[in-house]
């Protein structure tokens, strides 16, 4: 099984995770910029974060045979914090980088005016830099938040196929499919969505324009959940062709719209092999 996890926060994960992911067939990931669990206090810490997503993290991933790209944005939660908002002025300098394949995560957390303004400004940036968009949907008041996100996207006039709306569930998927966007699902051990419910949705909606991700981060999550979906699909009678479409071709097609996706095997690091690398702090 060849897997592309289109939404995973590897900065929060260990090298053990990378090893297990590689063994499970995960060959490519996209890490969107998001909230760190601990609130940031200035735009400067976003720059450090972007640097990490463009430098250290892809390097770390390459040592385990995983291609790492990123999406950059001011996340919805911190869009509300006046200490952080100026990062929007610095974003253009980073959206031009080779490793950036989307603008994201953008969208709503509590549906405030400040969140909406940051959301809209970043949709303009996506158009300016010709990048697809990853939209986060809120944990609370998700149905209203998803609907309002679709409205904002329509007003912004972005082609619907250049947007994925993420963290969907049984009650929010239909409106996203109708609007012509990609539908994203985060498969979690307890919250959001699980692999059994996911398979039921795939039976109803098919695999076209659908993406599943582990969204693994610093909270309870599992970076191998994408494979669990693949196994559950096979057990329910889906073909391996369908599994490959969902877990590889769909994310490759979506982020491929950036023109910046590179899915060949990562180049070997200068140290030459996984056993002698600096991620292990010197062999």
């Amino acid at each position, binding site marked *: 099984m060849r897997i592309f996890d289109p939404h995973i926060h590897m900065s929060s994960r260990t090298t053990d995770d990378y090893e297990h992911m590689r063994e499970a067939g995960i060959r490519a990931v996209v890490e969107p910029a998001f909230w760190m669990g601990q609130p940031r206090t200035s735009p400067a810490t976003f*720059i450090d974060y972007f*640097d990490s997503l*463009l*430098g*250290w993290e*892809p*390097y770390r991933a390459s040592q385990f045979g995983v291609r790492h790209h990123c999406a950059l944005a001011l996340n919805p939660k911190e869009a509300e914090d006046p200490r952080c908002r100026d990062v929007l002025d610095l974003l253009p*300098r*980073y959206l*031009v*980088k*080779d*490793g950036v394949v989307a603008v994201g995560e953008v969208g709503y957390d509590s549906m405030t005016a400040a969140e909406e303004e940051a959301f809209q400004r970043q949709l303009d940036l996506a158009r300016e830099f010709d990048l697809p968009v990853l939209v986060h949907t809120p944990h609370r008041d998700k149905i209203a938040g998803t609907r309002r996100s679709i409205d904002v996207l329509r007003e912004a006039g972005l082609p619907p196929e250049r947007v994925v709306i993420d963290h969907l569930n049984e009650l929010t998927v239909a409106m996203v499919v109708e609007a012509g966007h990609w539908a994203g699902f985060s498969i979690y051990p307890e919250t959001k969505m699980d692999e059994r419910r996911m398979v039921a949705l795939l039976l109803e909606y098919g695999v076209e324009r659908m993406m599943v991700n582990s969204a693994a981060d610093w909270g309870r999550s599992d970076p191998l959940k994408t494979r669990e979906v693949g196994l559950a699909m096979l057990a329910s009678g889906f073909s391996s062709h369908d599994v490959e479409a969902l877990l590889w071709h769909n994310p490759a097609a979506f982020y491929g719209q950036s*023109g*910046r996706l590179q899915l060949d095997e990562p180049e070997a*690091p*200068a*140290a*030459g092999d996984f056993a*002698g*690398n*600096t*991620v292990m*702090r*010197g*062999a």
Partner: protein
Amino acid sequence: MGPDLVSDVQTLHTVLHRALEEPAEHWLELAIARCAADHAAITTLFPSARRACGGNPVPGWPDWSVDQAVRTRLLLALPLSGEALATTLSDLYHHGDSAERIAVLRALAPLDRHRRLGAAGLPLVRNALRTNDTRIIQAAMGPYAADHLENAAYRQGVLKCAFVGVPLDVVAGLWRRADQELGRMLNDLVRERRAAGRSIRPDVAAAALRLHHRPDPGQELGGEN
């Protein structure tokens, strides 16, 4: 060592001219003109170089990728030298991804030769040597570091290469700069690894042996470079 791709601007220009096809060549000519007219133009051109021109090895110069050579060419086009050039380099480095940082580091030597950079690029070398990315460390220990890093930092740079797995044969100026103290440090590293029952890379073992009782530079007549 053979001649360097960037030993003169004309060679670099000719090699890139041969390596690039349209529309990349047109992009580069335009980018050079824009950088020459206004140094601020490089802020957006520098990160775009790989997408515009590609990242394969330069034909005939496999140590250089096309994007590194193109980025070096753009830096050489800037109407800047000395401290003013160092300010722009620092800005590009600190806002750059890994490939851009490597390109800045590799460009330091030609910029020193052709644009009077002097020691003003050393803070970037020191920053690079604090990372744990072997590609960045390797780029930092190029000819510019060999010419400008003070002894203690140069020794630490070599030791870091030995420690993280950058082959010592790509470290510029090693035999010219190596001294007794570096010999001691490398031999201590070998002893530590031996005591721990861990493998020792052949290049590290060979360098440690060669430097074991080496007199300091200047005390040895007729030494190799």
